[in-house]
């Protein structure tokens, strides 16, 4: 793989690694695999914890928010649309800026700052009951949030590409779910706690500052991770390969396989997320569930995926064959939708299996990008993917609402199934076009490891040659006696 992607486990870098004074143990040594898991992976997971936690603050406090701020449902929904609609474009630029200007370290820090400032403003807006400020705050929060996710992906690729990348993506997905679940469960108790002393919108503001605290924590994570990353670059002599700057027009040269992956991404996600958004009434009415159990069933997809996705990620790392996993995930989800739509079989079955299928797909899909896009373009690529996904989700959520109100859930389910079929077709096309290009995406794990090793050995050889050449040149210039 590439020079800067190189992590120390597999290839030995020539020359002595520098070690920081006072910390030379396994955990501190970037060459050690323990270091890669702890602290790097742990911190990486917490990088966007704050943003996922705060994203759903309004939902967790919906009733109190409507009451304390005297909002209509429409105004309340603005808190979400001000986040999602700008990100149809913004996270593409976020990804591009990571590649072009900031680099992943600075990028992650900058976006974390946006997230934190956004949440602080949001809390302050609630504290002073200023609606426009809260709206603006959500917009700023959105600028940071989605692009931070892109930065997180880029970090993951940088540290784990060619090794446990599927598992890491699974784990990140899992953490995003944990973040929003924790939020859903603790915001109300926190609000009630403050409510003993302060009431109304002031209490709401204080509760939201707790969210800002989480963002601050994630900001520290981004700083710490940047320090670790910089140190690793120095110690491992990971250096930026010169002359490979991304330009905007490079996007059009992204391979067909990338666009197919993007299509799968949007076509699959629109069949899951908007469905969950409209699921509550469906489960209550079709399966005669109480609102409590309907809510439980509805959130099963997220809960199951939070638990299952690291395991599936691990499994995919072991087996390779990402495209097959993607196709399996899509097909199984299609089956679940069919079960929910055309039968009265317990909704628990459909939703649990859908959660598993979603975990498989998410863990297998996102890492594929790193196999076909060079690292200096990876931020842009993930930015594009996320932007397309955001566009799809925003539009399809609206359309799904219209469909269900005019034609009911059966037609809505058929609509979702049609999207899944599209994802399936894109999956098959992806397989075909990948095969035509050499089958890198669907390679088995063993073969992939061999390829990675071979490539790295080759690059190592080239790099060594280059280094020796420069050193020779230097020795000629300065005429030291011994090389």
């Amino acid at each position, binding site marked *: *793989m*590439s*020079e*800067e*992607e190189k992590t120390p486990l597999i290839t030995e870098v020539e020359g002595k690694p520098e070690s920081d004074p006072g910390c030379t143990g396994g955990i501190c040594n970037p060459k050690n695999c323990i270091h890669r898991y702890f602290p790097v992976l742990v911190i990486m997971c917490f990088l966007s914890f704050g943003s996922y936690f705060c994203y759903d603050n309004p939902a967790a406090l919906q009733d109190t928010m409507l009451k304390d701020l005297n909002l209509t449902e429409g105004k309340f929904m603005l808190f979400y649309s001000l986040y999602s609609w700008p990100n149809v474009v913004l996270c593409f630029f976020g990804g591009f800026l990571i590649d072009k200007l900031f680099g992943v370290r600075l990028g992650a820090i900058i976006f974390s700052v946006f997230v934190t400032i956004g949440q602080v403003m949001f809390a302050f807006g609630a504290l002073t009951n200023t609606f426009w400020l809260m709206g603006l705050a959500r917009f700023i929060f959105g600028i940071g949030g989605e692009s931070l996710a892109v930065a997180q992906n880029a970090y993951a690729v940088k540290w784990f590409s060619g090794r446990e990348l599927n598992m890491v993506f699974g784990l990140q997905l899992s953490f995003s779910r944990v973040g929003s679940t924790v939020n859903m469960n603790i915001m109300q108790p926190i609000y009630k706690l403050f409510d003993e002393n302060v009431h109304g919108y002031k209490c709401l503001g204080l509760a939201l500052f707790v969210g800002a605290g989480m963002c601050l924590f994630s900001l520290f994570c981004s700083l710490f991770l940047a320090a670790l990353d910089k140190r690793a670059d120095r110690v491992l002599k990971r250096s930026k*390969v010169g002359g*490979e700057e991304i330009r905007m027009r490079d996007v059009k040269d992204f*391979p067909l396989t990338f666009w197919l992956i993007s299509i799968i991404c949007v076509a699959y996600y629109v069949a899951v997320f908007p469905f969950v958004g409209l699921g509550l*009434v*469906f489960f*209550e*009415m*079709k399966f005669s569930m*109480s*609102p*409590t159990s309907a809510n439980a069933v509805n959130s099963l997809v997220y809960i199951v995926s939070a638990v299952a996705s690291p395991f599936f990620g691990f499994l995919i790392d072991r087996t390779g064959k990402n495209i097959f996993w993607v196709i399996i995930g899509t097909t199984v989800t299609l089956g679940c939708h069919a079960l929910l*739509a*055309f*039968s*009265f079989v317990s909704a628990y079955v459909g939703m649990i299996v859908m959660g598993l299928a979603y975990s498989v797909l998410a863990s297998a899909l996102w890492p594929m990008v790193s196999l*076909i*896009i*060079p*690292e*200096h373009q990876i931020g842009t690529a993930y930015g594009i993917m996320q932007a397309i996904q955001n566009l799809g989700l925003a539009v399809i959520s609206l359309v799904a609402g219209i469909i*269900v*109100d*005019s*034609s*009911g*859930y*059966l*037609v809505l389910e*058929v*609509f979702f*199934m*049609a999207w899944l*079929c*599209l994802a*399936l*077709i894109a999956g*098959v*096309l992806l*397989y*075909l076009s990948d*095969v*035509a*290009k*050499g*089958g*890198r995406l669907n390679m088995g794990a063993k073969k992939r490891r061999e*390829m990675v090793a071979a*490539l790295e050995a080759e*690059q190592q050889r080239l790099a060594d040659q280059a280094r020796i050449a420069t050193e020779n040149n230097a020795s000629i210039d300065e005429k030291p006696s011994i090389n």
Partner: protein
Amino acid sequence: MEERKMLLALTLAIFALASADVSKRTIETVLYPDCSRYQSCLDRRDQNASDPNDNYPNLVYIRAMAKKDILHYVMTTVDLPSILMVHTTGSDAARLNFDWDRLLLANNETDMADAINATGGGDIMYTYAVVFSRLIEYNDLHDSANLANVNQSDSSLWNITDFTQFRWMNLTLGQGGKSVIFNTSYPQPKPYGNNTSGSLSFEFEINDDDGRDTDLPRLIYNANNTQFNFVLDHYVPNFNKSRFALEMTVIANQSSKAMQVVETKSIDDEFSPGVFRVVNWYTRGNGDDTGYIQWKPVCYLGPHRARDVGTELMYYNLQEPTKVKGLEGLMGKSLARAFYGEDLSNSKLVAQMSSNVSFGLSEDGFYLKNNYTVWTASVGYGTAPVEAISTTVIIIIAAGLGIPVVIIIFGGIYVCIRKRRNGYQKIDDGLTNSYPNLN
């Protein structure tokens, strides 16, 4: 031979249907029938509308006529809001007569018995009535939205008003006599002062042909049924966690066959999004000569009906009115008594069953959240309308799933053929060349 048998069976089936189910009827509406012959009726009918104590003896007599039979409907708010249906053979002169003195001047000595009679030829084929007896309001402390979960013995949780305590306004007639609205403000004296704008109403829509309602839950209607809406519009509740329920009783002239409530499920909710069930309360089994009340278990919390203001409607087991506290006495003052007379207490001639429907689902914010509830059902005779998956939906399913499946199958075949031809050799050759090298 076999074919002829089938044809015969089919013809018989069509005849059998024709006897009960007619697709087109002529509607004739009469307000206060026979009123001019009774001073008691005229006094009440022509009272000063601005009188705050106005209580009109609303009564509408509708004949829905076809060639061979007539459906007579009587809708009234005299004492209890009710609807009576009498099915007679098709003599044009067949009609019901009304004795207003009996209806309005009933006291302890004389009662309503036999105030309504059928005359003018035409055999009575079947009769049944639906009587709405009480409005039940309860304090749903635990947000269970289920009458059975509320402490029956704690009277502080209940506020039950029978409809005789309401004062009814002069009815509104619309759509060329095909829609009737009975509206009341509040029980008298008004407990919350006269300036409340809330109301409770029963709206009937008589159908003369087939179709489907344009309003949710978009019930199917036909010439043999009539739809009604029960509306609680800004009705001031007694508790913060108030929910409402409606008590109703069905009476039919039969003895042998039992009434039953049958619920059917469907995967298709295209006409009423989010509602997958249809409930039929049959007076004598699922057939083509039964009376029925049909509804979908949904009610709406706003006048603009939509999925997001829909909430559940719950119904309960059928009970004999004699076993329900306080109900038997009320039935003695109802339209049922006026028509069935002494037969009402003779279970060999007249069957009666009562039940409640309650509005709401836990976590929907109680009545107070929207201050509005509307429930729609249809009352009819003959075969209850059956919901079926529409052609449109079948086409959507076929197109939405069929086309992609065809593409996938053919794509799969194409891949297999290609693989056979090329084998894997070429693929391996291209291993490191075809993708851009990562840096």
